[in-house]
């Protein structure tokens, strides 16, 4: 529709035209803001012990559930702990879980995916196992692990990783299967390159771009799952302040103290939003289909 006419456009088209993003401007301000937000949250979380006014674990039975004041920027919780100090410190574990789960999933997925993609013999069995692991919801698996092993960082990372690894494996495998049909790979065979050499030098670099993108998405979803697990009482130990734990404790006081869910929820959402946006940007930049015709 409206292919031809620059002069006769409906009001709708004029309107959409005004707001349409010019071809080059797609990567303009959005990713920059996202990167700034993410950097800000990471820096604030990492440096939290240097500037928060209270020990996030210090209870004070005399000042429970206080409203925000000069002494307590965001007020206090049911044990009289300073919410601001807890929220700022809470990001550290959440981010650690996100990055940890992303690295472990991508690393394992890459190794298994390369093997599955290149060795036909192993492919069938590996993919059946991967299909099975994908069928297990991360939340339930985490719940089982925590029920058996007690709440710990390790249980949470393992629980998030197990259902993610198959997705990475599928991705790597499909990239390898497509790339091995490329004439340049066949040329390398004709040039006498060995299979491991072809796998590592020709095929593996093709997986890099999609893995970076996938890694950011895993990171974001891991932070989210950690929050949900803590919320359900199956996350890391309640001794450690994480965004999820703070929100979980806020459940019972939601009506009188919504800030206990709102503030950590806001930081968490902003953080995940920023990571997802950066992932989208990376995908747009690295998508070979967008670059194909420029060559």
């Amino acid at each position: 529709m409206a292919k031809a006419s620059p002069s006769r456009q409906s009001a709708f088209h004029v309107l959409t035209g005004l707001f349409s993003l010019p071809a080059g401007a797609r990567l303009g301000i959005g990713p920059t803001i996202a990167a700034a937000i993410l950097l800000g949250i990471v820096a604030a979380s990492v440096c939290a012990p240097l500037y928060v006014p209270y020990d996030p674990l210090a209870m004070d039975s005399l000042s429970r559930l206080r409203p925000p004041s000069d002494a307590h920027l965001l007020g206090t919780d049911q044990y009289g702990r300073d919410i601001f100090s807890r929220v700022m410190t809470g990001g550290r574990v959440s981010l650690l879980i996100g990055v940890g789960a992303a690295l472990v999933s991508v690393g394992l997925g890459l190794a298994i995916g390369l093997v599955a993609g290149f060795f036909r013999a192993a492919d069938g069995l590996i993919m059946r196992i991967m299909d099975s692991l994908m069928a297990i919801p991360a939340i339930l698996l985490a719940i089982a692990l925590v029920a058996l092993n007690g709440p710990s960082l390790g249980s949470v990372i393992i629980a998030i990783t197990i259902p993610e690894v198959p997705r990475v494996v599928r991705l790597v495998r499909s990239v390898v299967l497509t790339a091995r049909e490329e004439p340049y790979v066949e040329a390398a065979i004709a040039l006498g390159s060995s299979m491991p050499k072809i796998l590592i030098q020709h095929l593996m670099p093709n997986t890099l771009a999609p893995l970076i993108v996938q890694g950011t998405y895993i990171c974001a979803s891991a932070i989210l799952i950690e929050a949900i697990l803590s919320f359900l009482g199956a996350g890391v130990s309640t001794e450690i302040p994480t965004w999820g734990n703070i929100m979980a404790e806020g459940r019972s006081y939601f009506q009188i103290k919504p800030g206990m869910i709102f503030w950590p929820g806001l930081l968490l959402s902003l953080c995940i939003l920023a990571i997802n946006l950066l992932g989208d940007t990376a995908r747009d930049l690295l998508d070979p289909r967008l670059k194909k015709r420029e060559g």
Partner: protein
Amino acid sequence: MFGYILKRVLATIPVMVIVAIFVFLLLRLTPGDPAAILAGDAATPAQLERIRDRLGLNDPLHVQFVTWAGQILRGDLGTSLISNTSVSGMIADRLGPTLNLAVMTIVISVLLAVPMGVIAAWRHRTWVDFLVMSFSVLGFSVPVFVIGYILIQIFAIELRWVPVQGYKPPADGIGPFLARAILPALTLATIYVALIARMTRASMLEVLGEDYIRTARAKGVRENVVLFRHALRNAAVPILTIIGTGFALLISGVVVTESVFNIPGIGRLTVDAILARDYPVIQAMILLTAGIYVVVNLAVDISYSLFDPRIRY
């Protein structure tokens, strides 16, 4: 066609077997004595023995597996450590609310998300596209319980349009059922809509660049026909796939949503089981949800043929 369906059904068997082995080993390979862990610190030797007996932990591993698998095949998912009733029965009692919620969520999600994705792709790089994508990224980024509390705050507490929490079965009247189910369904739908809209947009963008779309326009076909008759059917397979694989997200969401809205479904059952360390229930839930996931994806696989004649049987 029949042969293909049979083949697909048979192919799910190894997947379920591997899931079962995985779940079985999860308990048995836990470092330490699982019975002691589940019983808690204050357990007496008699209690420990009872748990071991209940979970069948006294026999050699392979005997345990045969007994356990045999029970599952007969539909016996074990007995709760807490209530001493059969897990299958407990699940059956709680299935109704969850199914109602899930069906409502899927219907809402597909009806909202597919048109959103189609329009975003059609008006690629305009403010409509930007809005849809923003909503989609937001839906991924906000935890489901936060969305739940925000909706409660707005619609139940401020506006007082619906009750805050609770559940009434449709048998008690459609009105009361919907009043209580609409917020949980919307809460649950947020992430699903985000997922499906995103995939619909991506798939449509790809299809709209195809030659046959240009052919359709060259024939003078109206734009809505181009979008829904020519493009959407070709874009359907990835959308169906994401609806299937996204089911895992829905299952996780159910657990959270039911506890936020206090709905007596299997999600609540699971949360209660965590707090009580009722392992047989947790184990049964994993098996059940994995089974549902596999069946849903089997249905999705089979439905491909409705949209794409090139997928032959």
